[in-house]
């Protein structure tokens, strides 16, 4: 065979065009978004001449926040509440994984999960409070119980959907390998439900914050330890609107940090594996 392969010359490749596509300075862009929102806020407050008792301008909130951070009040309160929330979310997610697994491994489990969550999920805290107080008293345990009721359902429902959407072929591979229920869960259902799980985490934190703030006032203003919820409520009752907003800003900053963490996990898992589109 006398065929001389004709290889076309490859043009010189800058390589730069495609290399710069990776998501960088994500936090910088986020900062930009936030700055934009702050500017809108400041302008609205000034243009509509909003009473500072209702909505103070960001500039004066910033001033106030600096002094609150300097004297440690804000950081201590935020740390206390964050810690409680973290515990609740860890415990709640564990319970939720169990429920969702029960739901996906047994037909009855699915029905049970859907029934109980459509019963428990819409129940407002007011219904649970008396019971919680009787059985757990005041203090951290009670707070955690109420937050759990928020976290468990949001995580369980999202995970359950994610588990159910696991591709049939992958589930079949697992069954042919005769994996135990535990391994099916850990190695097949969970990785494949990572996008749903991360959304669940986003919402668990968000609703967890909402709940902890309102519950802390009622259940958790324990002597030694005061959290962000008590801080915010006492600010509200004492018309210290700037304090209130400083508290909210602490929540927002923590929320953004959590979002960044979740996003990093997402990029390293779901996006990398091609389960999610990456549009940073």
């Amino acid at each position, binding site marked *: 065979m006398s065929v001389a392969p004709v290889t076309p010359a490859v043009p010189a490749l800058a390589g730069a065009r495609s290399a710069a596509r990776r998501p960088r300075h994500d936090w910088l862009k986020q900062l930009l978004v936030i700055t934009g929102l702050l500017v809108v806020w400041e302008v609205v407050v000034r243009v509509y001449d909003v*009473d500072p*008792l*209702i909505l103070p301008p960001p500039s004066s909130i910033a001033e106030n926040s600096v002094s609150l951070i300097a004297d440690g009040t804000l950081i201590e309160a935020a740390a206390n509440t964050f810690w409680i929330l973290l515990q609740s979310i860890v415990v709640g997610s564990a319970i939720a994984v169990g429920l969702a697994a029960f739901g996906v491994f047994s037909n009855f489990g699915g029905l049970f999960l859907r029934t109980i969550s459509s019963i428990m999920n819409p129940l407002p805290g007011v219904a649970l*409070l*008396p019971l919680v*107080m*009787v059985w757990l*008293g*005041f203090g951290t345990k009670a707070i955690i119980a109420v937050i759990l009721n928020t976290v468990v359902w949001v995580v369980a429902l999202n995970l359950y959907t994610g588990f159910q959407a696991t591709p049939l072929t992958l589930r079949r591979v697992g069954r042919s390998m005769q994996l135990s229920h535990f391994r099916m869960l850990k190695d097949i259902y969970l990785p494949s439900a990572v996008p749903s799980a991360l959304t669940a985490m986003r919402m668990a934190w968000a609703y967890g914050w909402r709940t902890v703030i309102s519950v802390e*006032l*009622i259940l958790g*203003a324990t*002597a*030694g330890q005061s959290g962000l919820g008590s801080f915010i*409520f*006492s600010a*509200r*009752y*004492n*018309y*210290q609107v700037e304090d209130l907003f400083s508290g909210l800003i602490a929540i927002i900053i923590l929320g953004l940090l959590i979002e960044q963490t979740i996003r990093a996990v997402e990029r390293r898992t779901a996006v990398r594996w091609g389960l999610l589109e990456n549009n940073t």
Partner: protein
Amino acid sequence: GDSDEGGESAAAPTLRFAIKENFAYLPIYVMIDEGILEKHIPGAKLEYIGVNSSVDAANGVVSGQVDATIAGTTSFLTAWANNVPWKIASGSSTAQIRLIAKKGRYASLKDIKPGDRIAYPSPGSIQEIVLAMAAKQQVGNAQAFKAQLQPLGEPDASNALRNDGVSLDFTQSPFSDKLLEDPGYEVVLDSKDVVGDTALGVFVLSDKFGKDDPSLRDKLTKAFAEALDLITKSPDKAAQVALNRKIGTSVDANKASIAANTYTTALGGAENLAAFMYQEGFIKREAKPSDFIDQTLAGTR
């Protein structure tokens, strides 16, 4: 309608009340439901704004959506000190506030141990201030129990007391009455012993109210005074009004609750309360009665 007093006002005014379904707001309900308001301000349009606390009402005043309400004196003062534009038009009631505990545990505040929890409605409430005053008298330190306060709405607070979730409940009727029906409970502290006949609920008007027709303030305040009078003279009628408004469970029970309070325009002692709050740092603005009480209405009270 054409009344002799309101004939000149072209359009019928709109009155916006911030209300809540409990006995503190009873005078407003009576004023409306017994036709007293209609008599003083004929054809007035009414708007009700349901609120959960004085803070909501104050926000309504700030944003110009609330004309009149009843507030706890101390809540009023806290808001006023933070520049909420409202003033006291009249006293409303000297609600009886009682600190209740299980029988035999506390003879006085001195017996309260550091671990004991005291339930009270919310920061800045009358209960907080009265307790601070009593603490100053009995223990010598206004802030003695600050760390033991447990903000807890009713009926959670009473339930918590029953279940030993809290050791003491600083509450008012009808919740205090309900507790005291049970012989296992007793009163540890009565607000009367601390502040006497001080008006603890006050009738408040927004500064903006009646800008176009200042006589409205006067008329409304008069109507309010008449309503208080009616409650005192015919508690049966008032009890029925309350029941119609879904407050309380029966006319008899309501009568008992009404009897526990004194409904009066008198404002005595509010100055002392204000002075104490300023002195102990609860408010940052020095409160002179002439600043927070509507002077133009002095004659109507």
